[in-house]
């Protein structure tokens, strides 16, 4: 697999197909009967349909199909692990390589953005109903869009100053530029969805919302970083990855003095943290994880991305102590099986060892009278999975409106 690491932390856009390239790629599509790719998408996008539309020069139709099915169609085009989902199912794998479905989806959604198209509209099926969605991340946005399309008056509450959740605050902009997130969010705004930002909902308020609205959806994600219970974990210079990534945009100047960085974790968040450090100018970066390279949970594409940037990925070492005087200076590791040890100098340590839902919201998972979805329920899965759960919750909610 060839991935070309970007050299910019905040590019204007991720390189996209032009019309001719898209037509060439679409004409590679075998246009299968009952196409297997559509069964590869958790949120039920039918790539075969939009690829066929591109093949027959109907780019509007393609963008419309994507948008109707997935309110985050532009973002998912860039960040879905296609190689594990739709592209893995592509019949063309049996000939040479799968159709680049993500790139074709990006082509169509970029067309939508550049031509300022609006494909979604509201019906009045459930006009008069109102719903509150807590959290402005993928699950909530997807739920809000489905409801809004059917005429429901939706308000989204989020503690951040801008909507998007992980899309905006965790996934770094070289993978998902803000323009793309804004483009997806603008579709919700066009549908009339309202945003109450800088508003952290409490348990007490949630109870009031259950009275005030015809339905409440909660998708507050996993914003609480897990920590390591080893000596020295309270030293300065040790940051949770989620904090590091969410502040990277505003703090990118100061991040150039990160010095020697050690990242702990083998998932996508660790890979993203490492690449972000690289793009922002850290002196040296090591990413260390306990899993083997092939079993580290990050996607192949993400691992390749970091690898091609020259970031050493050190597998099968477990951190056992942070060493330093007030501030972290070194990290000690032990090999998971053979007992060999390793110490790495560190001015900055980034912990990407998992995330969980904030304590207060933990109890909401079992609460009666609300609908939930996304990372807080599934423990941390893909954006497209969160979209699927948000859509599903919206469908269930609308069923209750009919009762």
């Amino acid at each position: 697999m060839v991935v070309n690491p970007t050299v910019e932390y905040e590019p204007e856009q991720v390189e996209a197909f032009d019309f001719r390239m898209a037509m060439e790629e679409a004409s590679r599509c075998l246009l299968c009967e009952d196409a297997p790719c559509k069964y590869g998408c958790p949120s039920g996008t039918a790539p075969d349909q939009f690829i066929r539309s591109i093949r027959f020069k109907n780019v509007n139709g393609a963008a419309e199909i994507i948008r109707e099915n997935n309110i985050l169609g532009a973002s998912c085009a860039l960040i879905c692990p296609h190689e594990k989902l739709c592209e893995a199912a592509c019949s063309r794998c049996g000939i040479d390589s799968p159709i680049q479905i993500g790139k074709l989806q990006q082509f169509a959604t970029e067309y939508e953005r550049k031509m300022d198209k609006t494909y979604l509209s509201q019906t009045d099926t459930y006009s008069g109903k109102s719903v509150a969605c807590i959290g402005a991340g993928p699950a909530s946005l997807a739920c809000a869009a489905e409801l809004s399309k059917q005429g429901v008056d939706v308000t989204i509450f989020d503690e951040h100053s801008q909507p998007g959740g992980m899309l905006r605050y965790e996934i770094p902009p070289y993978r998902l530029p803000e323009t793309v997130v804004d483009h997806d969010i603008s579709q919700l705004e066009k549908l009339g969805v309202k945003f109450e930002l800088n508003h952290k909902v409490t348990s007490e308020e949630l109870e009031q919302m259950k009275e005030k609205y015809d339905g409440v959806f909660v998708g507050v994600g996993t914003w609480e970083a897990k920590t390591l219970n080893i000596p020295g974990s309270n030293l300065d210079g040790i940051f949770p990855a989620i904090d590091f990534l969410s502040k990277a945009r505003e703090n990118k100047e100061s991040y150039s003095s990160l010095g020697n960085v050690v990242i702990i974790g083998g998932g996508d968040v660790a890979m993203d943290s490492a690449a972000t450090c690289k793009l922002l100018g850290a002196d040296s970066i090591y990413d260390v994880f306990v899993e083997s390279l092939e079993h580290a949970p990050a996607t192949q594409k993400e691992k390749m991305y970091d690898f091609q940037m020259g970031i050493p990925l050190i597998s099968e070492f477990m951190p056992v102590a942070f060493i330093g005087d007030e501030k972290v200076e070194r990290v000690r590791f032990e090999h998971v099986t053979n007992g060999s040890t390793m110490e790495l100098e560190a001015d900055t340590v980034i912990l990407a060892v998992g995330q969980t839902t904030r304590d207060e919201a933990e109890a909401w998972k079992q609460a009666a009278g609300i609908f939930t979805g996304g990372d807080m329920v599934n423990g941390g899965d893909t954006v497209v999975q969160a979209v699927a759960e948000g859509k599903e919750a919206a469908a269930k909610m609308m069923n209750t409106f009919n009762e």
Partner: protein
Amino acid sequence: MKKDLSIDFLGVHCENPFFLSSSPVCNNAEQISKAFDAGWAGIFYKTVGIEGMNECSPRFDIISNEPSSWTGFKNMEQISELPLEKNVIEIKKLKESYPTKVIGVSIMGSNEEEWRTLAKAVTEAGADIIELNFSCPQMTSHDMGADVGQSPELVEKYTRAVVESTHLPVVAKMTPNITKMSVPAIAAAKGGAKSVSAINTIKSLTNLDLDNLTGKPVVNGKSSVSGYSGNAAKPIALRFITELAQCEELKDLELSGMGGIETWQDAIEFILLGCRNLQVTTSVMQYGYRIVDDLISGLSHYMDERGVDRLEELVGIAVDNIVPSEDLDRSFMIIPTVDMDKCLGCGRCYISCYDGSHQAIEWDSQNRKPIILEDKCVGCHLCLNVCPVSNCITPEKVVYKDGKDHTDKEVVQQLVYQ
């Protein structure tokens, strides 16, 4: 998005202009039901004759430039393989199951009596429109098909025979294997046809089989000239449609266009040149009835973008912009420019300009960059057409051959190159 794409054709209301043409894609009721369910507004039922045909095997060949896509298609199939009485049953079944869909039935006889018999039979069966097949190029009888379509006398005589035998509107389907299509079309009008449809397939030999030393497909060591169709045939179809649309004597006839329609853009081209009704076969044989989804969606989006509410408004609006070549403005040249940021340095423009045009591109071999020599460039745009990169070479400035500056004059140019 789905706009109202309905349009009347010969007084028959059609939910959209998309019909299947008389061919293997509308052979029987079961098959056609799937097409109707997919969204096609109507069909021209595969040509009904007195007797069913005896076909050869194999019977197709293709011209392609990509592994999964044909640009041209040759077929040796004749008219319906079923005899008249069986087709009548199929047509009745269809009309009962799909009362709002439009059933055109194509017929072909070998003498006046047969044409009359067929016309009466399909009228009784419940057809909405009758199409006269004067154009199949691979009939085994020379009293039928394209040989008839080349004779204005026979076209008029057989059209009249049908018109006298039915109350239904009659469409005469033209062969492109002729220099002037308007001659048989006028003959059909004199015989009472209310519409002409064009084009049927073009006589062809697509490829030779170099082992068996005959054409393809190889039928027991031999092959025959037969009809060529598909997207590669579209330019020829559009040329004939324009001839019909511009012919004064045919002004009162409605046109049904076909020949290589695959995308909504192809479809609109036929509409802009005067067609109220469109017929499709080859792309359906290749991709299936489902292509109608993007024909409908693409046409709807185009109308939406142009602010057009009724399809009718688009019919024929490009006809007057196709003029004889002596009427073109030849006073200027449009000199292209190369976007060096986009240029890959492949040199294709240089090669084509040198070998195929006016040696007006210099090749900077050191930097692998083309340089357009404005004093030698004639504005032919061959470079722009061979460039593999989108919008790398684009038209830049208008230069007048008289050397003067005509700032008051506006030269209308193509807006989008892809």
